């Protein structure tokens, strides 16, 4: 596997460089609204510092001829317990245009926080944001249909929060098993 590893070793920085180039374009357009680039070799990402600009950034990323991030692979909610924040991580890439891919993080307050919805930019985000809401409880402003998706409608609490306490009974059924 020596060859493969060497190859991988060469590819990884190249991939990160591509992401960096894409990031530079975004940075050039939005300036301080985005944070510094994090050259994480397994998942290069940047953070949206000004969450209110997130939809603009998303639209720019999707539509700019140099970026064309037309494919959202994944949107995951994350609980940043220590920073008292909740966040989402979007993995974006471009199908049929460029080989670059990048991850974007958007964070909000832990209690009652909200993040602008990008369901109108990538349809993928629609259900994923519903899932993030279902599991973490942050709201997505402008989401067309923000309901719970995996848990029942009348479930209490947000299961993937680190401080989640499971409810004792649900419709008379004992929950903790």
């Amino acid at each position, binding site marked *: *596997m020596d060859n*493969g*590893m060497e190859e991988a070793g060469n590819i990884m920085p190249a991939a990160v460089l591509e992401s960096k180039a894409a990031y530079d374009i975004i940075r050039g357009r939005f300036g301080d609204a985005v944070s510094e680039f994090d050259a*994480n070799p*397994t*998942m290069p*990402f940047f953070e949206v510092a000004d969450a209110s600009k997130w939809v603009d950034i998303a639209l720019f990323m999707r539509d700019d001829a140099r970026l064309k991030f*037309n*494919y*959202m*692979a*994944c949107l*995951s*909610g*994350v*609980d940043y317990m220590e920073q008292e924040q909740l966040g989402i*991580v979007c*993995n974006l890439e471009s*199908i*049929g245009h460029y080989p670059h891919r990048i*991850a974007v993080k958007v964070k909000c307050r832990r209690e009652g926080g909200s993040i602008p919805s990008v369901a109108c930019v*990538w*349809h*993928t985000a*629609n*259900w*994923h944001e519903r*899932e993030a809401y279902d*599991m973490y409880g942050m709201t997505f402003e402008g989401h*067309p*249909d923000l309901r*719970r*998706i*995996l*848990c*029942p409608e009348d479930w209490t609490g947000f*299961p*993937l929060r680190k401080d989640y306490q499971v409810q004792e009974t649900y419709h008379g059924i004992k929950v903790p098993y």
Partner: protein
Amino acid sequence: MQELGKAELNSTRIIRQDDNRVVIEKDLDTEYMVLSMGPQHPSTHGVLRLECITDGEVVVEAEPYLGYLHRCFEKYCEKVDYPGIVPYTDRMDYLAGMNTEMAYCMAVEKMLDIEIPRRVEFIRVIVSELNRIASHLVAIGTYGIDLGAFTPFLFCFRDREHILNLLEWISGARMLYNYIWIGGLSYDVPADFKKRLSEFVTYFKPKTVELQKLLTENEIFVKRTKGIGIMPADVAINYGWSGPMLRGSGVDWDLRRNDPYSVYPELDFKVALPDPKFCDIGDCLARHVVRAIEMEESLKIIEQCLDMMPGVDGFNSRVAIPKKVRPKAGEVYSRAENPRGEVGFYIVSDGKSTKPLRCKARSSCFVNLSAMKDLSRGQLIPDLVAIIGSIDIVLGEVDR
């Protein structure tokens, strides 16, 4: 039903014309009926529930409701250590356990930055391609059932049985393998495996032809699927479709080639794309045909792997498996091409614990299914069934 208000709904009629244009007629005094399709319904492939608003046989809109099979995969992951998650990934997409395992293990291996023996990589590719065939056999067979053809289903299951036997022989289990471990495999393959596998390939090739003649080329089948549920390429990408669904829309995109992993770069295979002479690009038939072609491509990959796989005497498949899996603090998003599309794992490690801080599974079916509402608009109920079948959902993966 956000778009149409209730009053408006009752005076609107959506008609899908022969050329798939949707015409909306207003001011007709018809009443809509809400039809709850599922969670117990023969063609929702498990416990999906579709709330259909119907106008006679025409579906005005179908809203999917999920969660009937939600098993808190992601919550479990935060309680179980890294190797313990592998059996749970099997249970995510239970028709393609090997592929999901491989996607997960590759993600953790990326974090650990460990080197995998070459033979292990080949065996991994072989088992996941076998599993891809098995999974597509189920997809094609059940699609036949959705459209009323029962016999191809049983032919598919007869052949799948041989694959399950092969996989049981090497991993010890028939569906929930826990075969691919972080850094290696639970066992090396048995001595006769190569021979038996090549026998399987010879056995299976004529069966794909038979299946094609019996089902894919059947005129009733073609009439039922051609031009139904058309998804244009750009919308498909925007919906995040992947795998056979995306290729059915004519997008030349395959993670095995576009984001190569394991030994796929060394293998010669074709990315399956539908033939525009036989089907309309992006319709149900195209998706079905892509799966049929992919089975043949998988056979090719298996044959090549059998030739290229280095044989090592007394090979220890667990040689690279770390004693304690405790990745550095960091995060990774890694994905693999599963039978149903891109399965990715987003894993966050805090560097201290042997359990992930966050493990999110990007499920292909979940994303593919999200286009259901758009696809179903203005279709007939039998077409709705055809569309659900062509999405090839596994509820275990949708709900996780």
